[in-house]
């Protein structure tokens, strides 16, 4: 029997009834990992996974993650396991501590089977810029289509059924966009709900831990394990947490949903629009109020530039510690500056350097007012506009991306509304710190595409309830890529 593609619930039932052991699950996941053709893995944790899985003897009936295999994006610190963030500047780095989320999943007795690749330092959206090269979309075995990024390895492993869930991160849409391209549920919880201790910072005012799964309830199980205050993260919320999985079926029948007209208008793909409108009709037929509402198009067009300036500027500062001295390859030099300059020149790819320069340009004394501070002010304008919609509506609902996964090298007009709005609107949830989830709603040419639900801050439970409801309408869950 194969366990590939089974959900957490299905695997849990098998584990509890002792029809399978954690060791058997880990062994199969490791076989799949070793045969991976998606270029997803940075490091396969064979020895560690087998030892840990073998130590799990008596099933924990009330712990759905007991014995469940998963993968970790390689920008989470893992004690004694190489961690590179897919950048050559961290080649050979072996952390001395676990990220809090890794620790929590260990405590839940889930079994990590590998560290998976990403766009370098999580700064990209294509899954092509990591030091291993492109990661492929498992739904396209010809390897012509992107899986998206930056959490490309997490998306590929979950979509290919090696594991039922994966850890990702989300600064602009790095969990929710790949989820759309790979037929997955990609969840970015409320900013501060999950500790980021041990997550390599990209832009801390936006960074959030992300969860990949193949159905909504599985995402809720993982959030149950990860949510909660952590003294090690000064931005971690002290609010009490909910039971996200236990109440997932209890949606408020008076739920009101807003569809942003400007986002729909920026999408040209008829299949995506038709399918999306079908889901709207289905929700209305079920008694939910769904209205089409406006957000000023100028605000929507400014989403991407605002994100680009803020994220590049924050990244420039946050990655100053990557110097080849405390970790990473060391280069001899006559002066301290020589040593660091060689490490950073050789360690960062061109793409990362370009982003850092843009960030530094925005932070220059002469430019701060016109670029960085202006972007931060515009962030407030965006957040106010979004929160105004969420005063009257429980959720914002929109297509997650303008199309199915693009082919490698397909270029967008970066000044078009399709690029500025349709391709980048998910960043709204990062600006405002809101819970936001993508789930599949349709398939075109054999490739899945998704829609996104965003709710109010700390209403993660309600967002999961809405997604669970929508999943029932589409019937699209537990999608696994066809074998080669």
């Amino acid at each position: 029997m194969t366990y590939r593609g089974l959900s957490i619930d299905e695997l849990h039932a098998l584990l509890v009834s002792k029809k399978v052991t954690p060791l058997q699950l880990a062994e199969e996941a490791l076989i799949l990992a070793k045969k991976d053709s998606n270029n997803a893995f940075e490091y396969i944790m064979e020895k560690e996974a087998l030892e840990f899985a073998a130590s799990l003897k008596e099933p924990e009936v009330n712990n759905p993650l007991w014995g469940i295999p998963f993968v970790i994006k390689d920008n989470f610190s893992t004690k004694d396991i190489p961690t590179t963030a897919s950048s050559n500047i961290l080649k050979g780095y072996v952390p001395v501590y676990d990220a809090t989320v890794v620790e929590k999943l260990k405590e839940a007795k889930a079994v990590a089977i590998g560290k998976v690749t990403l766009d370098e330092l999580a700064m990209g959206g294509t899954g092509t810029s990591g030091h291993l090269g492109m990661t492929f979309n498992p739904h396209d075995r010809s390897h012509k289509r992107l899986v998206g990024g930056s959490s490309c390895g997490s998306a590929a492993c979950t979509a290919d059924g090696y594991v039922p869930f994966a850890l990702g991160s989300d600064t602009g849409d790095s969990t929710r966009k790949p989820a759309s391209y790979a037929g997955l549920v990609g969840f970015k919880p409320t900013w501060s709900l999950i500790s980021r201790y041990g997550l390599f910072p990209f832009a801390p005012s936006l960074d959030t831990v992300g969860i990949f799964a193949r159905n909504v309830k599985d995402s809720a199980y993982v959030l149950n394990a990860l949510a909660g205050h952590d003294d090690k993260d000064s931005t971690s919320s002290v609010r009490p947490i909910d039971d996200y999985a236990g109440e997932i079926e209890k949606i408020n029948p008076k739920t009101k949903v807003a569809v942003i007209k400007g986002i729909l208008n920026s999408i040209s793909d008829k299949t995506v629009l038709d399918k999306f409108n079908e889901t709207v009709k289905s929700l209305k037929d079920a008694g939910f109020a769904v209205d089409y509402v406006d957000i000023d198009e100028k605000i929507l067009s400014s989403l991407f530039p605002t994100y680009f300036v803020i994220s590049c500027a924050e990244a420039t500062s946050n990655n100053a510690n990557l110097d080849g001295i405390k970790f990473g390859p060391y280069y001899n030099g006559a002066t301290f500056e020589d040593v660091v300059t060689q490490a950073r020149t050789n360690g960062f790819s061109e793409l990362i350097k370009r982003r850092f320069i843009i960030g530094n340009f925005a932070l220059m004394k002469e430019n701060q007012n016109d670029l960085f501070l202006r972007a931060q002010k515009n962030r407030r304008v965006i957040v106010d506009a979004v929160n105004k919609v969420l005063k009257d509506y429980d959720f914002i609902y929109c297509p997650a991306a303008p199309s199915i996964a693009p082919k490698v090298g397909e270029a967008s007009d970066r000044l078009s509304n399709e690029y500025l709005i349709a391709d980048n609107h998910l960043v709204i949830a990062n600006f405002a710190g809101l819970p936001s989830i993508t789930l599949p709603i349709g398939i075109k040419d054999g490739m899945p595409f998704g829609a996104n639900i965003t709710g109010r801050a700390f209403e993660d439970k309600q967002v999961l309830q809405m997604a669970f409801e929508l999943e029932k309408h589409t019937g699209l869950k537990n999608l696994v890529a066809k074998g080669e």
Partner: protein
Amino acid sequence: MKEYNIEILKQAAHGLLFDMSEEQYETLLQEFDIVVAQMKIIGENKELDKTEQMVFPFEVSTSVMREDVPTTPLPREEALRNANNKIGGQIKLPKVVL
């Protein structure tokens, strides 16, 4: 906003302690044309001058004070294990003061 040209981009790169090839700077200069055109979209909103900056999405109440709890600190070997140039239990670097 400051004018941008190859020299300014080099200045920004060198300030961050890395360098690129001439060809890469040329590519970046072209990218700047698009980035600056995108920035102009933000510039169109004249109301921004009256708006307060937003740094974090919302305030998070947290306590910086905590109970003193005795713990075992990271051993020196562990703290240094990822440093690739060390001597006598310390990181070795070129002289800073000559």
